[in-house]
């Protein structure tokens, strides 16, 4: 079985590296994008099994990127998870209203992240 692909859209290179390394260590294939536009392009070329997306991005933001992803080749079947620094209820609600399948709070927990990601992938259809 080929490893499952995760697209990580995150503008901060260190945070991107952290998430990439942790997920790669957990056995995932990680594709990087540093902006919403790049994320759209990568997803178009090689559709991932899951997208982790920072909400605050340069250029088009996370919500807009999500909207375009859904309209494009990704369709509705691939889960898109928001990564947010805001631990407030209104931000969670905003993320869910925007159509994200879930959210992961920053700072991400190195120990919990692989499990969280796995849950979002297998959790679909539950």
């Amino acid at each position, binding site marked *: 079985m080929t490893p499952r692909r995760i697209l990580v859209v995150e503008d901060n290179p*260190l945070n991107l590296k*952290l998430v990439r390394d*942790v997920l790669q260590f957990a056995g995932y294939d990680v594709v990087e994008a540093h902006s919403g536009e790049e994320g759209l392009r990568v997803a178009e070329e090689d559709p991932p099994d899951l997208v982790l997306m920072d909400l605050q991005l340069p250029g088009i933001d996370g919500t807009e990127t999500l909207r375009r992803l859904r309209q494009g080749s990704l369709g509705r079947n691939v889960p898109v998870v928001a990564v947010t*620094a805001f631990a407030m*209820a209104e931000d969670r609600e905003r993320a869910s209203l925007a159509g994200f399948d879930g959210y992961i709070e920053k*700072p991400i*927990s*190195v120990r919990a992240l692989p*499990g969280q990601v796995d*849950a979002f992938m297998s959790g679909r259809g539950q």
Partner: protein
Amino acid sequence: MSDRSERTSRVSRASVRQHQELRQARYQSKASREILAALGRSAADPGDVLDTVVDEATRLCGAQAAQLFLLKGDMFRLSRVAGETPQEYRDYLEDHPIARNRSSTVGRSAEDRHTHQIRDVLEDPDYGRHDLQRLAGFRTLLSTPMILEDEVVGVLSMWRTDVKPFDDRERELLEEFAVEGAIVLRHVDLMRSLESRGAELASKVAQLEALRAVGEAVGSSLDLDEVLDRIVTNAVRLTETDGGSIMEYDESSDSFHVRAAFGSSPDLLKQLRAITIRRESTLVGRTALENQPLELCDLAEAELDPHLDILFRDGWRSVLAVPMLRGDKIVGVLVIRRRSTGTFPPEMRELLQTFATQSALAIVNARLFRELETKTKELEVASRHKSEFLASMSHELRTPLNAVIGFSEVLLDRLFGEINERQAEYLRDIWNSGRHLLDLLNDILDLSKVEAGQMLIEPSRFEVGSVLDWAMAMLRERATLHAITITVQVAADVGVIEADERKFKQVVLNLVSNAVKFTPDGGSVSITACREGTALDVTVTDTGIGVPPEDQERIFESFQQGGRGASKEEGTGLGLTLSRRIVTLMGGRMWLKSTPEVGSTFGFSIPGLPELGHEVASSRHGDLPVVVLVDDDRVSLDLICAYLDGSPIQALRAGDGVEGLELIRKVLPAAVVLDIKLPRLDGWHVLAELKADPVTVEIPVVIASVVDDQSQGMALGADVYLRKPVSRDQLLDALRSVGAL
């Protein structure tokens, strides 16, 4: 016969006399009636009645002429005449009135306050007005005073040109006319004072109306120019002058300029605006300097400053300037002008001073309002900048922290290889410092949200005891490390509260963690909860170093740790500030009682307990085995808690997978009751994590879910798999089977 005839003639003479007297009396009473009737009509002109009085007196008393003299100053002047009075005599009297002395019957009757008669003026040695006698030719004079309220106000007088004294009846008649005349005079007097009162009242009403309009304008949020326009318009109209203006004083240039005007042509206004009215050597300036109204009653005669010069050329002839002061400060000058010359009466000055005061008030108010508006706008901008700064700073700082905490975790977990103990220690220091910074940022963000009114309260129903137990559990590890005992005591009548659970937890955790932090090794921390009506009182008491009285208020301020050994222990310094703000936001209050070297009690009170008799009884029984319930559905949690009520078990609740995992790792419970569909981290992963960790691998897990996947549950290591809905017996049996009961 002769006797009889004599008697008859005597009788008839008497009868004739009686008859005549009767007729006289009739005349007299008719005259009185006419006078009184005229009096009744006299509303229009009481002068008519006085004419009637002198006419009737002449006719009824058989005089050639009668006069009514009225006292004006100290002289009697002719007011009414009847009969034959030569024009010459009348004209002459104008310039030569009668004095109040013994030279005339008029003077004598006034002096003695009774009727005087001179049989023949030519034979009276004391008579002194032969000048008049020569003009009118009278010989016999009769005068009687008219007395009003004990004062002689006039004299009624008549004459005959032959020497024929007036008899008693005629005298009485004149006296009666004098009384009636006096009544008329009083009437006239009353009418006159009424009229003047009426006029005074009308003008007062007009003034009040104008002042009210002005006051209203000053008090309203109208534009200042409009207010001043109204003031100057009302001032000019009320004083019945022709125009006016309000000159505002400008401190920076030490001069006045036109701010509002009325009755002024656009051309005049243009000219007035073009000049600078200095404070020195101008009428306007002097008015302000001397703080008193100044007037020029004829501009043609006056020395003209540039301002007055313009007015003079525009056809203005008299000017009154009234200072507008607020306290000692010059605000401006109100100028009222007329196209005609003449002085301005004192009442007008007084009235205008009122207007000037109002104008000063309006100008000062407008200035204050403008200042306030500017300040408010500046503050709003500053506050917005602050919020934006905090929000962006918090984001900017948290992003790198994410990497700091994350990479140290990666290394600490030896994801990419072994590290030595020293390296691990330093990594823990990095990790701890990162977490601390993160807490600080979160507190700052929370505080700024409270201050900006953006922190929302989200009430739910939860068990007070569970939260207190949770807080105790979260700090048990640290307390044990310092041999500090933590106890929780919840009163029997405290059960479920309706409040914001997340924020309640935040406050309790802050207080308990402070208590543990500031209590020396071997001390104790006790948490209590009791009821005060429908309010919940929570106290956290420690045997710590205490807070000196002078610091007990300051400690709630930002970045104050009030000499509580802050150097030893680290904290954000914002916790108490934030906690108190949150408690206030929840409608409660927070307090502190402390004795240095003995300990402190931090307490807070929040509303939200149900009325007594409606509450759910507490299920707590001291130091019992703990079961952690992980479920995002509050109803399910409440149901399970209700099932466990009465069992020797303490139930702690968690609302999602991450929180559940955290709690389980902290308290290491006797068992876990786990839902599968959970936010953040689902039950499968919680289960997998627990079973992957040697510390938690032994903790029995009971799954209670609507998800029907027993095989996966068992494969991951669950002990019992229950499908919702779960009955009480099923749950108790399950807990018994895993040894938690």
